């Protein structure tokens, strides 16, 4: 495209054409100007933001430089075209991945740690369940072991979520354990005799019990089976 004569170009165009000068002014403003902005103005950017603005300014400068190119040389041979297309693609994706990797990251638990913690809580719940002081097993059975005064808990995790509208399996189990027979929902066909466990165990222990009960889906692979705490 033909370029209009310089003397007729508007002032804005002339200014934006001198990309190097604009970039230099911006960088000076970022690194020399910004640090001297008085703190009370509320516009004092930290060095991390100044690095961020610098990267943005350099990328913008690069873009505007590229924008000014009328025509770039392109490969002639088909294999070279394939290579150049692949290169554009790989550089694009590579740079995007790099941005994601250099951005501040939060730490993650090691993969083995999460299940260990999960297991610990469920394991503690399991011990509580069979603890004679707590006594869940006296009334409830799991996989054929335990009492029969309360509902069988072999598949409790699969059913508990459907007991009370609006409550998930976990929430229902927690509330039921806490309140016992005082809880509004009673499992049909069972006498309302369940102890309110909030008086017997701590909240953490209640959580452990719930963790254990929510593992009881009744599948053959489970070591135990379940149903739910009832009255």
């Amino acid at each position, binding site marked *: 495209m033909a370029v*209009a004569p310089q003397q007729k170009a508007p002032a804005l165009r002339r200014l934006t054409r001198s990309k190097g000068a604009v970039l230099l002014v911006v960088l000076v403003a970022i690194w020399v100007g910004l640090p001297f902005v008085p703190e009370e103005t509320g516009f004092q950017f930290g060095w991390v*933001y100044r690095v961020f603005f610098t990267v943005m300014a350099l990328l913008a400068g690069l873009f505007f430089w590229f924008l000014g190119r009328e025509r770039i040389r392109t490969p002639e041979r088909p294999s070279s*075209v394939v290579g150049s*297309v692949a290169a554009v693609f790989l550089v694009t*994706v590579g740079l995007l991945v790099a941005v*994601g990797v250099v951005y501040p990251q939060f730490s993650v638990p090691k*993969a083995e740690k999460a299940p260990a913690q999960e297991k610990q809580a469920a394991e503690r719940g399991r011990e509580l369940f069979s603890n004679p002081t707590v006594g869940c097993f006296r009334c409830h059975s799991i996989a054929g072991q335990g009492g029969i005064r309360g509902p069988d808990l072999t598949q409790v995790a699969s059913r508990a979520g459907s007991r009370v509208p609006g409550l998930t399996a976990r929430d229902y189990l927690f509330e039921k354990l806490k309140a016992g027979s005082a809880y509004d929902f009673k499992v049909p066909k069972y006498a309302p005799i369940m102890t309110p466990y909030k008086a017997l165990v701590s909240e953490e222990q209640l959580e452990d019990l719930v963790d254990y009960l929510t593992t009881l889906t009744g599948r053959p692979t489970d070591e135990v089976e379940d149903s739910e705490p009832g009255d």
Partner: protein
Amino acid sequence: MAAVSALLPLAAISARSLLWLVAQIHLLFAAFVLGAPIFIVVCEWLGRRRGDPRYERLAKETMKVVAIAYSFTALSGAAFAFVLMGPYHEVATHLLDRMGPVFAIYGGLLFVETALMYLYWYSWEPLADRKRLHLSIGVALNVAGTATMVMMNAVGSYMLTPPKNAAKASVWALVNNDTFSGLNLHRFIANITFGGFMVALFAAFMFLTAKTREDRAFYDWMGFIGNFIGVATLILLPLAGYIYAKEIFLYDANIATFQMADKLSSFFVMQGLLVSLLFLGVNYYMWMSIRRIDGAERFSGYMRPIFGVIVAGGIVWIIPQNFYPDLTTQTPGVALEDIVLPERAGFLGLMMAKALAVTAIILFTFVTYMVYRRAMALGAVRWGEIAPQAQYALVFVPAVVVYLMGLMGAIRELSRQDWHVYRVLRDTTPQWYTTPLGHTSIMVGIVTMIFFTFMAFIFWIGFKLGKPEQEA
């Protein structure tokens, strides 16, 4: 749990990573085979209406690729289902149990869609004189395809926003959950955008390897049409995205906090960067297109100011409120004031500033298009004479689009946190944790590369290998 845990370390990568890869590759193929046929039928209709044979050729050449891609969609879908029913059978069982009728309809629709797709493709020549009938088959194909997508959107949206009383809810209540319509709207538009940009990518490669002036002119035009469809729908996507996000936020503000102020906040900075790059790419292509119009020099003075606004809008969009990785993590050795926006500039990190930036970008993209229209009205388009770097912009844009789709998919899945189905079915697998942006970026990068490797193969078969010698 024991059996599930035993199956988890599949081959060299975890089951979670494997599921991540196959699910996203399947979704990318699905987006292509759903979006491209809409584009194709519109082109075929335009060809008939305007009497321009280029539209017919464009539609037909693209449909050939779609037909091949359809097989890959089915294969990747089978792989997805296989992984889901293996290590994650608990999830599969739950979904089939709760939404059985949805899966049944989905299966039926797949048969209908497949039959219509092959009918549409193989009846192209036999029905050359009965275009209206052929177009009707194409429309039916798109209706079936969209309905298929809606079925799986029901499942996907249920997993993030199940109704509050999910256990007792009817199947329809599970389907018509709080984000069902938002996800449908967003995906429907995005699929067309994706289809347009993919067609532009094919055209770019064909342009660069074309040997004749006629072919160059055709593929230049094809790239322009693909990009045009992509841009026309792209400018609607931020609005659809806001609607979808608002539905999520209204459903549970905890998810909003997790997304915007906690672990996923950096993902949205990345999203802003990607969308800004996308708009820069499409605007760059449009300005290169303007340059090959006779007499368009008079508009050249507008180019840099317009890009100035778009670049400034992009920078405002991605300025983070702070550089905390999440709500609780401190960066060692860095002072608080260095990683948090100063008091008076705090507005730059708020939604208001971001929304204004996006609006400016969209508005000035529209201005670019108006300039193009104006230039076309005043001078002839020299098809085939576009600067070659414009074709590389058409390579750059789909790479960014696919990466963006992968990132947004990850955000949607990670938003459920440690739930397979939010607050209904907990994820207790060993690999569960919110992956940081770096981990996610690597996964999305791998997905993007695998997808384009497959697409290159499909494209090679469809556009190059299957082409008569005189055209190739």
